[in-house]
C-alpha cells in the first residue's frame, strides 16, 4: 500500500503505517488522515507532535496508558484522559495518532 503527497509516493504496510519512519513530513499526516476522513485540528497536531518527540527520545511508540499519563503531565490534566484523546482519535489514540505521526504501531498493541 502507499499514499501520495505532492507527487511523492510513501509506502505503508497493510494497516497503513509508514514503512520508512524517516520519510515522514507533516503532509504525510494530512494525507493519511484524509484517507480515514479524519480532519486534523491544532489539538490533533499537539498529540501527533508529542508522539514524535516521545519517539525521538525513547525510540518507541508508547502504550496508550503511558501516552495518556505523559500527555497529562506535559499538556495538562484536562488533556491527559481517555475521553479527550478518544474524541480526537476515535480509532484509538495509540493506533491512529501513531499512524499519522509516521510511527510504528505501539508496542503491545494488537
Amino acid at each position, binding site marked *: 500500500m502507499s499514499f501520495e503527497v505532492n507527487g511523492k509516493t510513501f509506502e505503508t504496510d497493510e494497516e497503513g503505517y509508514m514503512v520508512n519512519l524517516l520519510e515522514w513530513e507533516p503532509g504525510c499526516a494530512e494525507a493519511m488522515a484524509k484517507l480515514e476522513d479524519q480532519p486534523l485540528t491544532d489539538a490533533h497536531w499537539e498529540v501527533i507532535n508529542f508522539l514524535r518527540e516521545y519517539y525521538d*527520545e*525513547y525510540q*518507541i511508540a*508508547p*502504550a496508550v496508558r503511558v501516552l495518556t499519563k*505523559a500527555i497529562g503531565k506535559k499538556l495538562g490534566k484536562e488533556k491527559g484522559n481517555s475521553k479527550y484523546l478518544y474524541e480526537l482519535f476515535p480509532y484509538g489514540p495509540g493506533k491512529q495518532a501513531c499512524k499519522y505521526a509516521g510511527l510504528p504501531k505501539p*508496542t*503491545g498493541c494488537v
Partner: protein
Amino acid sequence: MADVKKFMYVNRKAPYGTIYALESLEVVLIGAAFDQDVSLAFVDDGVYQLTKDQDTTGVGIKNFSKTYSALGDYEVSKIYVDQESLDERGLTLDDLQHLVWEDEDDDWAEKDSIRVLSRAEMADLFEEQDVVLSF
C-alpha cells in the same frame, strides 16, 4: 490483588549481535500492562545493555538503549544489576544510564531504578520469584 505474581526478567547477553536483549525489552513493555510485580536483572554480558552513550552506527541496528529510560513510564522501577558482572568487565555504576521512576505515592518524586546487588543477593532475589524469564 491476590493474584499478583513476581516476575523477573533475567538479561544475560550483550545488546547487539543477538535479538535477546531487544526481545526481552519488548516483552517487558508489553507485559507491563498486566499489573504484575515486575523486576529486571542484568547479569553477565547483560550489564552492557544498560551502558550509556551506545552508538550503533557501525552495526546498522537501531539503537534501542534509549528505550530503557521509558521503563519508568511503564511503572517498571526495579532494575537489579550484578556487581560481580560489572567488576569482571571493568564497569561501574557510572558507566550505566541513569534510570529513574516517579513515585506516585511520594508527590511524583524521581527515584533511582537501578540497584546494584552482590551475586549472593541476586541469588536470593531469584529465589523469591514466582516466574523467571531468561533472555
